[in-house]
């Protein structure tokens, strides 16, 4: 083919000449090749990478049947809604989704999770391991969440506080990757999914309605989900869904109103019935109380009687005690008398018989103890002998006889007794019927009576005591009986109390029940009124229809795909411009150098096109080779670097490479056309010139001389003259250097603006070390407690209210995050400076302070009004107070007053900003992690790192652009300087031959280079600033705002690199001057 080509167009020798021409101009040719390669590599590489990322992401979305739309309704999504959704043309599948936020308990840690129902046709979780749940107590867990918290398949997990979830305990049956979370947690933080069967939700209480619906569209599988076609197609279907939303929301509103009106009517009826029952119960209670009161009176009377009887008993007891004392005393006196009697008997015997007989008798002893209460106790009984008592009612003779008789038992005979007695009394006459003993006893009794004559008196006293004792015992028996009766009465009284208490408790229970019932009734009544009021105030149903872009991960990937592609175009434009200029300059210089040769070849009869082909081959040949290398480099070098870098943020496999044949061919064709135009522009004038003209020395355009001698040396003037004479070359040099410098400035600006914006956010604006958001239920109780704990630990805290608050800007809904609180006090934690004035914002200003990044996207200014949505997605009109400087995040500041005026409710603090201050980070972390009810805590240090990490992907693009621009800059400068030196070679040699020093000769070239570089750098800085600004604007999103001002560091780096390259290249190229062969011109 080549043979045919050169056969047709080029003669063999011409081809040889063209090839040798390339060989002689290696540096220039190589520069064209490399510059074309760099430009195409940057463009194709970025586009391949963009395509590869979108392709890989699309493949993932196909595999999980990613929803093309998600519908969230303010009044839940019903089956009817779902049916209507499925009937829309373009909708392939639709399913209801139940979703609830809860806390996964893991040791002491609470992890916020989103529990979501398993779907079958849309947004199907991709299993990483295990299987899908089969029962309501099984779940899939997001693999990232599992990995981060060491949760494994088979583990049992507990999820608390998840509304509508039937159970809390779940067994992990598998790990999954959810379609909603294509981007990993590092890049897109948020609650990760725990997937359960729909049965795990209490769907009955939701009337079978889902929290949202997801749908997949027809014919989207296999398409590029980030391409214009897909977006246009989904937009079309989304429009239909939006139209459906109008109908369905009206229906839903009506259905809800009907349902709840009926429920209110039922409630009213139930309350009426309850009131009747309550009234009846009240009557019963009143009757019971009257009876209880009567019994209480009886009880009181009984108590009184018991008291009287108790007093009587007490008196009787006192009397009996006195009697008892007297009896005791009396008994003791009698007992003493008895001892006297016994001693007297002894004396009488001693006197009548002798001591030995006294000793022989076993005498009784005085009474030791006695009990007056003993009914058998008697005073008339005297134990004269041991175990034998005498009755004092009997005469003394008998007692003495008894004693003497006892002697017989001791072995003493009657004769002995008689004998002894007769010794004292002489013979003793023994009467008939009288024995010895009785006779002796008579004698002794007489003796006794001689010294004791009170025995009878004593016996009488003993008898009297016995009488009194009998009386006492009778009274005692009577008292015991009385006491028994009183005790019985008292027991009865006490039982009455118990019975009464029981009665009262029953009554009180009844009363409490009644009051509770009444309270319930009143509450019910109030609830009913409230329900009525709420129903009357219920906002119409609203649908939020979220297309693919409504998914955070999709949005991020889409943004990356767009950013990379946009940057490819932006940078490539400069690359192409510079590349074309370099080709133009190179060919122009070569043709100019070969001017005479061109003239000679013309003179020899070659056609213009034949001469043109030679240079075309040089320029276009180099460009084609470069472009092919660029496509290869873009495919094999840039693309993998970017896909690997971006891939680390994605959960899906991002290893498939993309090759866009059509784009590559278009790039090559455009490159060829551009190169051809550049070559033609460079040689057209010369080619049109006559052979004679060309063969003559080129003279400057004018010979006009001022005639006025210049103060500058001719050497200096000549340098200027050269530049003025060769304006085209100088201009191209300047523009080329400016282009490279602009690329460098652009690349560095992009990198520095992003990194500095992140750093500024966390040093100048975000002063808090952590932000903790409490769940709505726990905030009221836990927030102040946590605040106190943190402050005790030495930290500073600030409580405020935060809430998601979408708003309408530039015709679409943007996500916003309210920071509501004391805007003066918040400054120490979140330094919001007025976006225009630069000073602290006016804390009392009426309206909302929006983040300044919006200004570039939306023309918001103080005093404007815009629509904000509350948590029920109801729109409210809000006024813009101003803008505040912020780089990352979507905070919207307002004071409490503004909040109340917009939303009609008092803000409730649910968020705590903490500055560690005197507390250690660990202690703050410990406190926050051990606090219940914390929905999420973000630590600024970690967030800062995450942002830096995210920025590193953009960093890499910037770095690639800088490297490519750097390589280009090197070769451009090398080419230009080499061309310049080659062009001036003869002049330099002449100068050297004529005595100019090497320094002067180098200076001759260098001064122009310095001037070109300075001018090029100045222009490059300007263009670079614009390029950097453009790139930054491309990269910015609603929640990310980078530094727009020119970055001096970026400029300095660009200047430095350009200068280093220039110095390096000039050093190498100008070495030639030192070694110029002076004899070449001879």
């Amino acid at each position, binding site marked *: 083919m080549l043979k045919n080509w050169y056969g047709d167009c080029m003669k063999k020798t011409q081809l040889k000449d063209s090839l040798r021409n390339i060989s002689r101009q290696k540096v220039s040719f190589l520069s064209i090749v490399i510059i074309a390669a760099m430009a195409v590599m940057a463009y194709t590489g970025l586009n391949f990478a963009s395509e590869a990322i979108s392709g890989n992401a699309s493949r993932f979305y196909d595999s999980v049947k990613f929803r093309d739309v998600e519908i969230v309704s303010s009044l839940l999504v019903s089956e009817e809604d779902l049916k209507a959704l499925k009937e829309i043309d373009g909708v392939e599948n639709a399913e209801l989704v139940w979703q609830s936020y809860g806390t996964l308990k893991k040791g002491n840690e609470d992890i916020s999770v989103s529990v979501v129902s398993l779907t079958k046709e849309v947004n199907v979780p991709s299993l990483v391991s295990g299987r899908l749940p089969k029962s309501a107590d099984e779940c899939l867990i997001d693999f990232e969440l599992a990995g981060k918290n060491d949760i494994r398949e088979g583990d049992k997990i507990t999820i608390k506080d998840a509304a509508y979830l039937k159970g809390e305990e779940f067994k992990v049956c598998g790990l999954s990757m959810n379609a909603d979370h294509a981007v990993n947690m590092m890049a897109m933080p948020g609650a990760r999914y725990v997937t359960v069967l729909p049965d795990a939700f209490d769907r009955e209480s939701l009337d079978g309605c889902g929290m949202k619906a997801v749908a997949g569209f027809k014919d989207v599988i296999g398409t590029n989900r980030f391409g214009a076609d897909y977006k246009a197609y989904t937009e079309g279907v989304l429009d239909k869904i939006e139209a459906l939303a109008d109908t369905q929301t009206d229906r839903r509103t009506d259905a809800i109103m009907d349902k709840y009106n009926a429920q209110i009517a039922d409630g009213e009826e139930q309350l009426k019935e309850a009131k009747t029952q309550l009234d009846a119960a009240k009557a019963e209670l009143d009757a019971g109380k009257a009876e209880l009161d009567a019994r209480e009176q009886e009880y009181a009377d009984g108590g009184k009687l018991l008291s009287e009887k108790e007093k009587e008993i007490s008196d009787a007891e006192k009397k009996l005690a006195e009697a008892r004392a007297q009896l005791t005393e009396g008994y003791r006196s009698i007992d003493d008398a008895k001892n006297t009697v016994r001693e007297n008997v002894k004396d009488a015997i001693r006197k009548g018989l002798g001591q030995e007989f006294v000793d022989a008798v076993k005498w009784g002893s005085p009474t030791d103890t006695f009990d007056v209460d003993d009914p058998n106790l008697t005073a008339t009984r005297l134990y004269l002998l041991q175990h034998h008592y005498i009755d004092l009612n009997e005469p003394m003779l008998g007692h003495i006889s008894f004693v003497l008789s006892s002697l017989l038992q001791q072995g003493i005979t009657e004769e002995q007794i008689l004998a002894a007695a007769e010794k004292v009394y002489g013979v003793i006459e023994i009467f008939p019927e009288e024995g010895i003993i009785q006779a002796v006893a008579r004698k002794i009794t007489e003796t006794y009576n001689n010294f004791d004559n009170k025995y009878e008196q004593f016996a009488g006293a003993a008898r009297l005591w016995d009488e009194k004792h009998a009386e006492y015992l009778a009274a005692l028996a009577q008292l015991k009986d009385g006491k028994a009766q009183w005790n019985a009465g008292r027991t009865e009284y006490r039982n009455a109390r118990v019975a009464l208490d029981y009665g009262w408790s029953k009554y009180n229970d009844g009363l409490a029940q009644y009051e509770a019932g009444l309270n319930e009734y009143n509450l019910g009544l109030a609830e009913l009124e409230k329900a009525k009021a709420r129903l009357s105030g219920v906002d119409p149903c609203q649908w939020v229809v979220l297309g693919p872009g409504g998914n955070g991960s999709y949005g991020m990937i889409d943004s990356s795909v767009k950013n990379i592609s946009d940057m490819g175009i932006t940078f490539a434009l400069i690359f192409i411009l510079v590349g074309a200029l370099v080709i133009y300059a190179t060919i122009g210089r070569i043709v100019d150098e070969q001017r005479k040769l061109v003239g000679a070849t013309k003179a020899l009869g070659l056609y213009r096109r034949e001469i043109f082909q030679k240079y075309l081959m040089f320029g276009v040949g180099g460009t084609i080779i470069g472009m092919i290398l660029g496509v290869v480099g873009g495919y094999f070098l840039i693309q993998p670097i970017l896909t690997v870098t971006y891939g680390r943020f994605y959960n899906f496999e991002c290893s498939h490479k993309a090759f866009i044949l059509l784009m590559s061919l278009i790039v090559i064709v455009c490159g060829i056309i551009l190169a051809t135009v550049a070559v033609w522009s460079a040689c057209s004038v010369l080619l049109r010139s006559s052979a004679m003209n060309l063969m*003559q*020395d*080129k*003279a*400057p355009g004018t*010979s006009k*001389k001022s005639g006025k001698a210049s103060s500058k*040396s*001719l*050497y200096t003037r*000549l340098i200027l*003259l*050269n530049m003025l*004479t060769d304006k085209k070359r100088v201009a191209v040099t300047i523009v080329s250097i400016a282009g490279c410098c602009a690329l460098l400035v652009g690349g560095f600006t992009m990198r520095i603006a992003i990194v500095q914006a992140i750093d500024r956010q966390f040093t100048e604006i975000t002063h808090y070390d952590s932000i903790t958001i409490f769940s709505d239920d726990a905030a009221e109780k836990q927030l102040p407690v946590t605040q106190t704990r943190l402050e005790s630990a030495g930290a500073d805290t600030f409580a405020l209210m935060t809430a998601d608050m979408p708003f309408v800007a530039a015709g679409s809904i943007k996500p916003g995050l309210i920071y509501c609180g004391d805007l003066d006090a918040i400054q120490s934690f979140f330094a919001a400076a007025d976006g225009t004035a630069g000073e602290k914002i006016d804390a009392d200003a009426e309206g909302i302070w929006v983040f300044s990044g919006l200004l570039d996207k939306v023309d918001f200014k103080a005093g404007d009004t815009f629509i904000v949505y509350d948590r029920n997605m109801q729109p409210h009109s809000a006024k813009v107070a101003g803008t505040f400087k912020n780089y990352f995040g979507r905070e919207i500041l307002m004071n409490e007053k503004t909040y109340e005026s917009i939303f009609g409710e008092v803000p409730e603090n649910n968020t705590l900003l903490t500055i560690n201050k005197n507390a250690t980070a660990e202690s703050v972390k410990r406190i926050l992690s051990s606090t219940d009810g914390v929905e999420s805590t973000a630590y600024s240090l970690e967030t800062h790192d995450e942002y830096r990490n995210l920025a590193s992907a953009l960093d890499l693009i910037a770095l690639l652009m800088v490297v490519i621009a750097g390589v280009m800059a090197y070769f451009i400068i090398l080419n230009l300087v080499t061309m310049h030196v080659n062009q001036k070679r*003869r*002049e330099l*040699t*002449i100068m*050297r*031959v*004529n*005595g*100019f*020093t*090497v320094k002067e000769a180098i200076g001759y070239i260098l001064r122009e280079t310095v001037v070109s570089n300075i001018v090029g750098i100045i222009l490059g800085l300007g263009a670079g600033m614009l390029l950097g600004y453009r790139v930054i604007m491309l990269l910015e999103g609603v929640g990310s705002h980078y530094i727009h001002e020119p970055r001096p560091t970026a400029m300095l780096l660009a200047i430095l690199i350009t200068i280093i390259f220039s110095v390096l290249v000039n050093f190498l190229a100008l070495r030639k001057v*030192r070694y110029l062969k*002076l*004899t070449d*011109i*001879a």
Partner: protein
Amino acid sequence: MAENNRFTKATWKIMEQLLEVDNLDEALSGSLEIIIRELDSEAGAIWYLDPKTDRLSPVFHVGPADISNISVENGIGLEGVVTKTGKSILVTDPQNDPRFEGSVFEDSGIEAKTMICVPLNNLNDIIGCVQLINKNDGTEYTEEELQLCERMASLAAMTIDEKGLIIPEEEEKEVLISLRDVTKEFPSGDGVLQVLKGINLDIYKNEFVVVLGESGCGKSTMMNIVGGMEALTDGKLLVEEKDFSHPTDADLTEFRRKYIGFIFQSYNLMPNLTAVENVRFVAELVDEPMDSAEAIAKVNLSDRADNYPGQLSGGQQQRVSIARAIVKRPKLILADEPTAALDYTTSIEVLKVVEDIVRDEGTTVMMVTHNPEIAKMADRVVKVRSGKIASIKRNLHPLHAEELVW
């Protein structure tokens, strides 16, 4: 027999040279060249005796040695003895020959191994001698060769007698630049190409030297070395007796700046400067330059002073080039084929300017050319062959530029 034939042929050639050439200088120098060629001699000279001073000076000499500025007393040295006695001398063993007391060629690096010296006898007097030294093949001169030389000398003497040789009075000249045994080698493939193989040459102040030679003989290389544009490989370069054999680049630049003016075949003007600016561009390099306008006037280009080179003809450009060369008031102007690209008329114009410069400014001009006609206007003509000085001829009666015809 063959030897006789060779000598006979040589004799005839010499006769032809002497008889047919109008210019006696050329006839003599041509004859010397013939005999040197025939005898394959290394060098040779025709010495002429100045009766006034009774000293011998070389009128023509051929070979690598430059003995132009040497004179010997009559009767002293081999040349003096031969002239004095009128007897030829053949030296075959100079070390042991009591007659040999050294050679003037030795100062130029030629060590005598064998030598012939024959007297130039006219009818009345001995007017000088013809001297040949060494043979290129290393053999010794023979008696036959001595006889041939005597024959040539007789013929020459007869011719001089017949045509009359007027030798102008030679002044003692001050040497500006001396080349001694200068060699120059260039790498060539795997080996080395020796372009100059031992050049010995003195350039005197205020003389016009023309260097002739065929292409590739080394004449331009020699001029480049003299001009400080190229370093010699071996030997010595003396500039006003100062050794410049191995100078630094800065020294060479300084040398070119102060001493040298260049005139190139291709003019080499700065295309972005006008004629006068080209001159001024170089004038700014030295402390006391000639006025640029004056320099331009000297080359008769005042009316085109403000024209750019592209607007001038070749001859005009060359004249600008000459003006640029003289404006520094250099001690030596090197002109490399200045008329090669010019037509006859223009060439004569240019040569006339050169002639004027030598005459009016007292500048030494060394011009390389392959046009022998131009050599006629030189004070001396140096012929270079195969990297060596083939001959140095003193033009006893240089022509003016206008007299040149080719």
